[in-house]
């Protein structure tokens, strides 16, 4: 018994060592964001400063239009995810019921294609349609990311839900739409939650679409934080604060929805 307890403590120690790069990184990120320039420029580095620079966070919002960019991010991610769910959940259902899993190859190819190769033609198209300067180009191009995720996860999910109820309902005279809406959809709710969460995260984190398509007023947060680096005399405190603001929503989501995220990522992977 004693031997076993010792083993467990040993494993805990090894696990702590493994997790330490993650913990130390985020702690250092917080530390950077809460220090004045003098403390951030000190050598040897200061981990916990004597005075906390909460003003860094205020500065981010006051000087960089961050409320606008936060709102843009919410709109783009929200719209791209909702559209993807509206389009992708029925599609996942249809593909699973048609037993056309082979068509999922299209989705694999979409995943393999570098985002930039979508960008060249769509950039020209949006320019021609005179849409640059609005949020629409970004919402539409984020569908390249969100639709495949949703369809992929929903195919896997609907394949595992039982057919018997649906058959019974259609024998009773329900139309396919009613069967989907009233029988299949309620059962699939956990799958939809997984698809929703992953879609939100990947859309929120996307950077490459924004740097090409966003103008000054339509930047999303990842683009905004990157621009802070390139166009200003770099001051570390506000920059770290901005980086933390950008990634905090996703990190919180990760902590609370860990099980769904793991389920979604590995479901796609193991096939």
């Amino acid at each position: 018994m004693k031997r076993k307890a010792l083993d467990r403590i040993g494993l805990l120690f090894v696990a702590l060592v493994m997790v330490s790069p993650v913990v130390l990184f985020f702690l250092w990120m917080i530390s950077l964001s809460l220090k004045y320039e003098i403390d951030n420029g000190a050598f040897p580095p200061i981990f916990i400063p004597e005075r906390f620079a909460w003003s860094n966070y205020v500065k981010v919002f006051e000087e960089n239009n961050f409320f606008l960019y936060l709102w843009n991010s919410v709109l783009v991610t929200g719209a791209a995810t909702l559209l993807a769910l509206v389009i992708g959940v029925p599609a996942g259902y249809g593909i699973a019921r048609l037993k056309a899993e082979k068509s999922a190859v299209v989705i694999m190819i979409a995943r393999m294609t570098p985002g930039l190769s979508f960008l060249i033609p769509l950039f020209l198209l949006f320019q021609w349609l005179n849409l640059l300067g609005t949020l629409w180009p970004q919402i539409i191009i984020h569908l390249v990311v969100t639709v495949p995720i949703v369809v992929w996860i929903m195919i896997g999910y609907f394949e595992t839900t039982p057919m018997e109820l649906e058959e019974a309902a259609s024998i009773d005279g329900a139309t396919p739409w009613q069967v989907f809406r009233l029988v299949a959809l309620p059962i699939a709710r956990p799958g939809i939650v997984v698809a929703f969460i992953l879609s939100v995260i990947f859309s929120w984190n996307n950077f490459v679409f924004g740097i090409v398509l966003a103008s000054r007023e339509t930047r999303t947060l990842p683009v905004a934080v990157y621009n802070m680096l390139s166009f200003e005399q770099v001051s570390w405190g506000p920059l770290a604060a901005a980086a933390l603001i950008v990634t905090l929503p996703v990190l919180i989501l990760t902590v609370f929805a860990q099980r769904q995220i793991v389920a979604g990522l590995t479901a796609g992977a193991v096939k």
Partner: protein
Amino acid sequence: MSSVSMEAATAAKAKQKQRSKPGRFAPNYWPFVIPALIVVAAVIVFPWVFTLWMSVNSWTLGQAQVFAGLDNYLRLAVDPRFWDSLWHTVLYTTLSVVAPLFLGTLAALIFDTQFPLRGILRGVFVMPMMATPVAIALVWTMMFHPQLGVLNYLLSYVGIGPQEWIYNQMSVIPSLVLVETWQWTPLVMLIVLGGLAAVPREPYESAEIDGANVWQKFRYLTLPMIAPFLMIAVIIRSIDAVKSFDIIYAMTQGGPGTASETINIYLYNTAFSYYDIGYGSAMAVVFFVLIVMLSFILLMIKQRANWSDGEAR
């Protein structure tokens, strides 16, 4: 042996298909798929056709568009900057697959055991994977700073002199890979952990009776059983690493000079810094073909591994 079991499997599948056929109540499922087909056509197929067409044209934005045949592809073949970027991509991808694979497997083996705080620690370990890459990259840039960065300070503790990290041509790619590894090791861990969950207990008990040590048990029992999952991790990691953009662009933009310019970064610069649409499109086509070839080779390896696996059983 394997062909027999394959035949049996396909026969069973056919039977299953027959049985699950809904008969005369077959509803029409196509309307469910059509909206998605339209979106896929608009944002995935159209760009592809357009890119193919552009790649045989010579067109810099703001100038006249001229049909150029294969000129762009020929230009690519003799462009030293492209070959450099190809080499950077190969190096970056290889390192970004091997390092997370090794560390992720190790982490999975640890998290597969029982110890206090396991759930919480696993949750923390997964966080980098979901964090916004650009935000992460900016913080790493500060940590890599040669004079004020915390990493050089930590190195001084173990007696290693200051490094130039991403500011030196020699160390820039390994430094970027360090960030990529930090972020993506958790994904490998999750995939391998999924594989470990399916591993049966009995062989280990008999191995223990036979006096096998930890390494032998890993080498001859665990490793063969999780091999298909390792292959999946390699495939996913390769596809992601080869098109890595955010981290490289945010930290170095391909620099210093062009020392960390991968194909994806060169493609970006060509299309959106020089607005050379035709040439950029040709590069996109070649890049895509390279990715498909890479995935194809990896899938072939996986297929063969699965077959020999089936025979062994």
